[in-house]
């Protein structure tokens, strides 16, 4: 039941167990139609998220990454999302430098009851990633292959 037309992209969602994962569940229970590009990873808290999860996801071929957790002041562990907000905000400076469009990564807050909000977050983020298309991939092969590339071209004497 793909809502977005065309090729499905790979979007990874890192969701906290207590709010956003339950919020996504609420959206499912409510049978809201959502794009199917998102693959969800459930985590105990957004404070568990190492920004390297997101970097690694992009390097392993993700086209977009969405992080969602409890609203500030609503964290199950009191302060996990406050730390997460600082880390993810910092990460936003790194991604464009290594060639990941800033539009491919977003973080937001969705509570367990906000099924409708979850639907609109997923729909608009998926649309945003689709507008950017699939992420340019690293070439396959090793560094040596890349170094040798000019050398293997036929020489003209």
């Amino acid at each position, binding site marked *: 039941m793909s809502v977005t037309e065309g090729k499905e992209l790979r979007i990874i969602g890192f969701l906290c167990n207590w709010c956003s994962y339950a919020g996504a569940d609420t959206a499912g229970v409510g049978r809201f139609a959502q794009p199917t590009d998102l693959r969800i990873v459930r985590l105990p808290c957004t404070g568990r998220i190492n920004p390297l999860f997101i970097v690694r996801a992009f390097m392993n071929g993700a086209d977009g990454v969405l992080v969602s957790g409890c609203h500030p002041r609503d964290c199950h562990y009191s302060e996990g999302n406050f730390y997460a907000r600082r880390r993810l*905000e910092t990460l936003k400076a790194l991604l464009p430098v290594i060639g990941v469009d800033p539009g491919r990564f977003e973080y937001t807050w969705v509570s367990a009851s906000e099924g409708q909000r979850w639907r609109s977050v997923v729909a608009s983020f998926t649309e945003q990633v689709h507008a950017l298309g699939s992420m340019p991939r690293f070439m396959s092969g090793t560094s040596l292959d890349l170094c040798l590339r000019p050398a293997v071209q036929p020489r003209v004497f």
Partner: protein
Amino acid sequence: MASSLDELKTAIRKALPGLDVVIAWTAGPDALSHAPLFITEEADVARIEWDPRCSQNLAGYLPGLRGKKAGIVAKGCDVRSIVELLQEKLIDREDVVIFGLDCQGAVDARSARAALGSSRGVRDVAIDGASVCFSVNGEPRFFSPGEVLQSKCFGCAGADAGLCDHFAGERGLPPQFGNPPESTLERLEAMDMEERLRFWETQMSRCIRCYACRSACPLCVCQDHCAAQSREPHWVDQTDHPREKLMFQAIHALHTAGRCTECGECERACPMGLPVMTLKRALNRRIKDVFDYQAGIDPNQTPPLFEFREVETNIKEREW
């Protein structure tokens, strides 16, 4: 600088009996960069050198000398690394004696070698305002600071004399150089996203994974417990692929986010001359904008990622 050197030697001679070791610079195998010197006897003090070739940040040796009384000779930028180590309680203030110096700029050995053609015959280097003079076999050769100095020297905040226990030379204003060379970050920002990815692909394909950047970094204190060597989680795999090498750089940058003082040791140590400080620069700029924080200024501050505010004034969250 000769008088500062004499002042420094006198201060070290005086302090040496109370110290286990003093770290300074001496003439090394390369005529364009001085090597570290670990002084334990007074006779070694005569071997100390002080000129723009003292590029290496010696602060990285301090955490390994914890528990010993160590003296360290430091330029203004090196003091910032020491501040960061103090802030993170990786060294003890009462065990460290800092000998500050009036630095006029530090030579980037790689670009200086390229500019000179060779490092042979270089006897002395002096910086006089707008030009850097190398005396090569008795003949002076002049270059602009942008050609031969380290990029960090353009934006030098000067010597933090407040923290130094001794200070040799004049506590004047930091050197001001015009026309900084274009940084890799600026070059990258002129590119589109795919070009940036290809840029790193090409650069990182030259990386030999020697981890000199990690060994040289004064803040890389995990050493044998580095995430790059961990198998569980397996952050970086063993394949010789630019993606994995860039992943390591991302790890290094994120692990030093809010801590990195841009001392430039990672780039200086890189045998392939890769622009590995670029990612750290980008993160630092963001941290300055969002958290109004610069690493290595005040030993009593908390790094921004170690704390939070309930209401973050500079973070604009997206409305959905």
